[in-house]
């Protein structure tokens, strides 16, 4: 056993890179993605969509994560900051942010090789043997370590995470293979990971890893709404919020939420800093929301700092951030298709009466 040497070991070494493709744009989510990238869409009262995959990576001992965003990434950058909230403010490894220099149309699959190619240095420099490539818009709480164990055991070239046979658009590969896929993209014609996986004319062995926990890929207002309200089911809740594998997010200095006399809350998820004076049911309420006296909020998603006046009725509505609903207003959507109120707008009592 040589002992003056410094490299080697592996008892504690972290072996996966995290790669998050945050370039996706879903047209069906347009109303929520005008001012922000899909990765930064608020979810479950205090999170952004990217928090789920990013926390999963951190909880799976991944210590180096590269995020590849494209459009409207200012709010995403503000949210992630130095990575401190995910313990990724590291001197070695940590959080890397590689905005796309290309302003062309969105690529069709997760893991755009063109975008990666502009930052190949990151992959060359990294010492982790494997890379996990994921989309940014899945709500789930998953330990990736068993995927790596299986990947190594089977000796496959690419492992695709699937649920009920459907791809969750997460791929595990050797970093060296990823680099060669990127380098040879022009020769092979593969533009992204799913091109490789779906093509049958190559010699790579592709394996599947079936994930049995809850996983929702957010790609439309309808399923955004359904997944949000669905979280109120204890089964779903317990699947996503685990003490041993917390979902991290940007913390804020807000006081606890206050319920005044006459307020009532049922079957709801409510973040800090809210002042609840009315009735809340089957809803998700984000930080710093005010719900005035006599108002009833049912089956709603109310985002940060929105203010609802007195004696309002809201049913099946998504209020984006900083919306002001004036007293006596009535807004109702349908449960299968909620009404979305755009960020920063003012809703008068007359508009919907």
């Amino acid at each position, binding site marked *: 056993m040589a002992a003056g040497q410094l490299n080697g070991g592996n008892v504690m070494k972290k072996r996966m890179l995290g790669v998050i493709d945050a370039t996706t744009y879903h047209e069906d989510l347009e109303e929520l993605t005008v001012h922000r990238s899909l990765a930064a869409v608020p979810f*479950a*009262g*205090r999170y952004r969509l990217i928090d789920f995959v990013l926390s999963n990576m951190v909880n799976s001992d991944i210590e180096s994560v590269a995020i590849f965003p494209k459009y409207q990434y200012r709010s995403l950058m503000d949210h992630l900051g130095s990575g401190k*909230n995910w313990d990724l403010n590291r001197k070695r490894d940590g959080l890397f942010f590689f905005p796309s220099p290309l302003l062309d149309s969105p690529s069709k699959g997760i893991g755009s090789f063109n975008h990666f190619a502009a930052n190949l240095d990151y992959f060359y420099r990294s010492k982790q043997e494997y890379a996990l490539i994921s989309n940014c818009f899945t709500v789930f709480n998953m330990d990736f370590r068993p995927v790596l164990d299986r990947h190594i055991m089977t000796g496959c070239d690419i492992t695709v995470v699937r649920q009920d046979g459907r791809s969750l658009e997460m791929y595990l590969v050797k970093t060296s293979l990823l680099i060669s896929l990127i380098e040879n993209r022009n020769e092979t014609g593969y533009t992204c990971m799913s091109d490789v996986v779906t093509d049958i004319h190559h010699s790579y062995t592709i394996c599947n890893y079936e994930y049995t926990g809850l996983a929702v890929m957010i790609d439309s207002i309808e399923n955004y709404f359904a997944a949000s309200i669905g979280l*109120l089911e*204890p089964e779903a*809740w317990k699947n996503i*919020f685990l003490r041993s594998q*917390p*979902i*991290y*997010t940007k*913390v*804020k*200095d807000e*006081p*606890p*939420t*206050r*319920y*005044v*006399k006459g*307020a*009532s*809350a*049922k*079957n*709801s*998820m*409510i*973040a*800090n*800093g809210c*002042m609840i004076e009315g009735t*809340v049911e089957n809803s*998700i*309420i984000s930080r710093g929301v005010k719900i005035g006296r006599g108002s009833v909020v049912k089956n709603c998603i109310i985002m940060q700092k929105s203010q609802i006046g007195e004696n309002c009725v809201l049913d099946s509505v998504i209020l984006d951030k900083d919306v002001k609903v004036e007293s006596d207003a009535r807004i109702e959507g349908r449960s299968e298709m909620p009404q979305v109120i755009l960020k920063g707008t003012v809703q008068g009592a007359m508009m919907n009466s």
Partner: protein
Amino acid sequence: MGKKKCVAMLLAGGKGSRLSSLTKSLAKPAVPFGGKYRIIDFTLSNCTNSGIDTVGVLTQYQPLVLNSYIGIGSAWDLDRKNGGVTVLPPYSESSEVKWYTGTASAIYQNLNYLKQYDPEYVLILSGDHIYKMNYELMLKYHIEKGADATISVIEVPWPEASRFGIMYTDEEMRVAEFEEKPSNPKNNLASMGIYIFNWSVLKEYLEMDDRNPESSHDFGKDIIPLMLDENKKLFAYPFNGYWKDVGTVKSLWEANMDLLDDECELNLFDHDWRIYSVNPNHHPQYISTQAEVVESLINEGCRVEGEVEKSVLFQGVLVGKNTVIRESVIMPDAVIGENVYIEKAIVPSGMTIPDGFVISASEEDDEIILITEEMIQGIYS
């Protein structure tokens, strides 16, 4: 280190014996308050909101929680390159520990800390009180009065005056006399234990006090009376906001209940005077279908399946089905089972209350129950 206008010294070694089991492994300034905070958050937030960026925190009794809570002060925006928070525990030169024996000796033993900033003014604070105060206004007052020392005072109810240090002032608010816990108070202006000293004067008197073998080395009992004797210019600074010494289980409970009162001056929702705190990561609170929440303050990480009325729930508290919690304070990570009834009580951090547990103060009794492991085991043994 650069020179500073005003440096704060925060006395955070309080044992808080009357808080019973709550301070068994915690210094009093670290006791949880208000659903999210620790008592010391108020003083530290006052400092940062008053533009004071250099704070020495003097710890002594059970400092471990406090030390790691304060860290380098980031939570209060006090992680500064020049100044910021410095925790000052008693230390050993060679192999004997210098224990802090009084408020004044604690400051005296840290004169070197103050000397490196060579401030014009020193603000002495206690980490035991709940209040919001702009120390900058007090400093301005101190400067305008041309004082050697300024002591903030508050009017207390007459029956309570004999529990405090009482000030007698002239019309200009110059202090003529000071009485520690007078049996027959002639005034109800009580010292809040907040002092501003000119640095040169403070240094002089601390050194004088250290040489006096008769002294108990206390600001109220020794330093202030000596300065009055020598005709120094001491002024009282009248404060009229919310201020509470949460020295007993009852007063800690009352201060929590105050937060549920619409009339209470202690507004936690004021964005211009935020109370900062270390923010752990928790999921939003979940209020279940069977739950009912009325007039309460509830923090993140809670999961409420029972009825909560006029209560304060800290982070991570679980409340089971068919359980009723009324006029109570439930500290962090306590787990309250099903079919429990708790009224007018404080449940300490991390405690598990078993299913079916019932406890409430008797009607005539005015006391607040601090639930202990013995109570729970007593019931089930």
